[in-house]
């Protein structure tokens, strides 16, 4: 292998350009060499716990799984890519069948893609094409939620409420309506769950009426809000009420399960916790465990039946949407998840994880902890009584990330928790194969990292 110190530092562009250009590559941007189970190893031999599933809720079955590598090689030697305009292929057919087996009942149809943004964009297209065929041609507005994240292509960004990723592209985004999220820690209405009358769900009804139901195509939401809010699950009554409101106004419900699909929350799909049937599910990450880019759109039977009856060929799709290699990887990952009861493990290990996180509430800066299964979040505040956040420029979340990273734990840091700009949280999403003692290790490192950041707080920022 090449000597990393001799590489052209300018060739690779990461998110943070300054890392590549101005800082020392060796110190600041460790190079991953291999992964095994829940661990990643860099070229210096340092070990890291992958506490956020490959850093963005991807890794389900863990790293370096030999079975996946073996089937991948076998499939590549057989057929890696075949012309989808005139041929089908076996792995593609089989994977769609396997997905149908674990999908919510009545969602037996799957369209495969290569990433979460492709999935949410194509979900909206399926919705639009369905309503178009039903002669509801005015229905196009998609209602999303603030602090919802549905992807980084323009259609996906338009329906997202992720301020940091949206703001400089304002004039290039389309029309979309946003309602506040179901986020009890900072309830938009200043209410308390139990006596709140579910104002956050009722906000959908108001938005649909204001926009005009004849214009509203769909509502899109993450069952457990991921990147932009830090693993916030909705209260039990929320999605059943959302479903009712959607039905009342003939609005489709798209569940964005890019993060929550395939067992991340301890159930097959996130919506299963609420026993709600969406019309469309967009899902990605866990389906391939990161071994190859793979995503899927799951459709309710009524949508496919109508499109088929109308001979309305789907006008979405991308180059890699039927490639046999990615599908073969997906099959193996789903088999491993089933054989090793990893969804059960995700539920079982989620309990000590959340319990351990609750202990972190003793820290003066930990304002809230939450989660579902192996998707958990910690929100940081300057003052626990007032819930006042740290100034955004202090980059509190990023400091937690760096301190944890230095101690061998990778977490995903997010900001904008409060209002799109202020607020800091981290997202934890370890591989489903994590054990209880590994959960303890993760928690211990996180505890130390928080302590370290708190110790280095300048006096004027102390609560």
């Amino acid at each position: 292998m090449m000597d990393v110190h001799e590489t052209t530092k300018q060739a690779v562009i990461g998110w943070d350009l300054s890392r590549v250009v101005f800082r020392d590559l060796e110190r600041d941007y460790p190079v991953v060499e291999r992964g095994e189970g829940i661990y990643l190893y860099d070229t210096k031999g340092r070990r890291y716990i992958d506490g956020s599933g490959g850093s963005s809720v991807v890794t389900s079955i863990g790293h370096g799984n030999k079975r996946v590598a073996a089937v991948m090689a076998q499939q590549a030697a057989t057929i890696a890519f075949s012309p989808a305009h005139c041929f089908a292929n076996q792995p593609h057919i089989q994977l769609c069948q396997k997905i149908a087996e674990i999908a919510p009942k009545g969602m037996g149809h799957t369209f495969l893609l290569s990433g979460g943004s492709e999935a949410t964009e194509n979900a909206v297209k399926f919705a639009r094409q369905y309503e178009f065929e039903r002669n509801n041609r005015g229905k196009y507005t998609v209602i999303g939620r603030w602090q919802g994240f549905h992807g980084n292509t323009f259609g996906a960004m338009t329906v997202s409420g992720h301020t940091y990723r949206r703001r400089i592209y304002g004039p290039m985004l389309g029309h979309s309506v946003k309602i506040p999220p179901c986020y009890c820690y900072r309830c938009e209405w200043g209410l308390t769950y139990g006596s709140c009358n579910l104002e956050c769900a009722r906000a959908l009804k108001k938005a649909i009426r204001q926009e005009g139901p004849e214009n509203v195509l769909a509502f899109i939401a993450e069952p457990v809000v991921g990147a932009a809010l830090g693993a916030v699950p909705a209260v039990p009554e929320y999605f059943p009420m959302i479903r009712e409101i959607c039905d009342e106004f003939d609005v489709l419900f798209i569940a964005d399960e890019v993060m929550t699909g395939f067992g991340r929350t301890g159930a097959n799909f996130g919506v299963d916790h609420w026993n709600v049937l969406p019309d469309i599910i967009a899902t990605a990450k866990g389906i391939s465990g990161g071994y190859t880019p793979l995503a899927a759109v799951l459709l309710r039977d009524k949508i496919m039946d109508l499109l088929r009856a109308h001979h309305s060929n789907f006008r979405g799709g991308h180059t890699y949407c039927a490639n046999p290699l990615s599908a073969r990887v997906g099959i193996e990952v789903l088999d491993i998840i089933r054989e090793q009861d990893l969804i059960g493990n995700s539920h079982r290990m989620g309990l000590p994880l959340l319990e351990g996180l609750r202990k972190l509430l003793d820290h003066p800066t930990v304002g809230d902890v939450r989660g579902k299964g192996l998707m958990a979040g910690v929100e940081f505040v300057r003052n626990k009584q007032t819930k006042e956040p740290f100034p955004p420029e202090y980059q509190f979340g990023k400091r937690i990330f760096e301190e944890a990273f230095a101690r061998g734990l990778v977490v995903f840091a997010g900001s904008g928790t409060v209002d799109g700009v202020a607020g800091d949280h981290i997202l934890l999403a370890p591989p489903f194969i994590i054990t209880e003692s590994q959960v303890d290790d993760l928690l211990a490192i996180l505890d130390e990292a928080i302590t370290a950041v708190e110790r280095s707080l300048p006096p004027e920022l102390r609560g």
Partner: protein
Amino acid sequence: MSAQVFRDFKRNYPVITRGKGVFLYDREGRAYLDAVGGIAVVNVGHGVPEIIAAMTEQAQRVAFVHGGAFANEPAMALTEELATWTPAGLRHVMLLSGGSEATETAMKLARQYHLERGKAGKYRIVSRWTSYHGNTIGALSMSGRTAWRGEFVPYLQSFPKIHPPYCYRCPYGKTYPSCQVACAEDLERVIRLEGPDSIAAFIAEPVIGTSAAGVTPPPEYYPRIREICDRYDVLFIADEVITGVGRTGRNFGIDHWGVIPDMITTAKALSSGYAPLAAVILHDRVYEAIARGSARTTQGFTYSGHPLSAAVGLAVLRYLRAHDLVANAGRIGRLLLERLAALARYPIVGDVRGTGLILGVEFVADQATKRPFPPEAEITRRIVEAVLEEGVVVVPGMSGLIDSVAGDHIQISPPYIFSEANVDQLVAALDTAIQKVMREVGTARAGG
């Protein structure tokens, strides 16, 4: 009923079980010559051991890490290698997973580039009709493909479009070279009419892909486009998702014109279909404007810089070099173009065009007037299926290339390892198919 959703809900798709070199085999053991390279994707051929070995080795080390926390060796090595393939000054690479991600990222970087330089009003992207830049909403906004925009128009940005450089059906009714490349001048007219203060970039496929397969602008076209872009501070994005990494017989399609774009998007050939992979390549001036400014970008997706995909890409680039396959794409492409041109002896063959191994054949009801067949005659579908019956795969070009409704053509984009014998087989199959379709629609007798 199958759980799988195909794009065409009525068609019965044969199931492919195996591929080797330029051939695909279905479940019944039938062999097909892959004359489309998957879909302008496969270049080194199917089942190449060197690629599989690189893939397997990387899968066993680490298949995935997120670019937010770590670098990885394959991504670093691939970007460095790719930087040796590019036109001068294009050395900065962002890795992605597909063509739509690449063009959307280029679009966003164009916006960011102007913002960083204090030009907040420049965000609109000019493109061409009869073009395709991807199927996500931003990419589709730039795509001049009416049929696919269809019911999604309410979601699309109203970006300006200019006419394509489509000499066979010149939008101005002119003839090259007396036309003085009016189709390039159209860019200046549109920029001035729209107002240069709102225009961030112009995007074009150097050689047009599936929207009008193989259409290649004249030599003056891109140099003139470059001048116009420079005059109005508009970035030129070469969308090389199809033409990049050797398909045209040069490293990048734009190399045929000796023009340096500000950004290149590339995808398909970069991994030869062995893994979803794409890239945006930035010219120094674009990269440096951002690096000097905020030095941050919100670009990127879950699988940006995916180690496994990158290892595959690196193996493909090395294989292409080791076997001199880009040169072969040029050599076989010239032979294929010559052989296809001979098909113009059939009255339904209107135009044959292409550069390297991205070629197209356009069909007409009347060669003299170029009158198209009525869309309901489904000439494209008939040709593609008749060729398939002969055991050869070609891809239907987008229908309606003339006016969004009428116009028939096919795309031919074989792997770069195509041999002269493969060319013979392809041309013979096409010859037979054309004769069959002519009998079906009665063209031979009616004379158009």
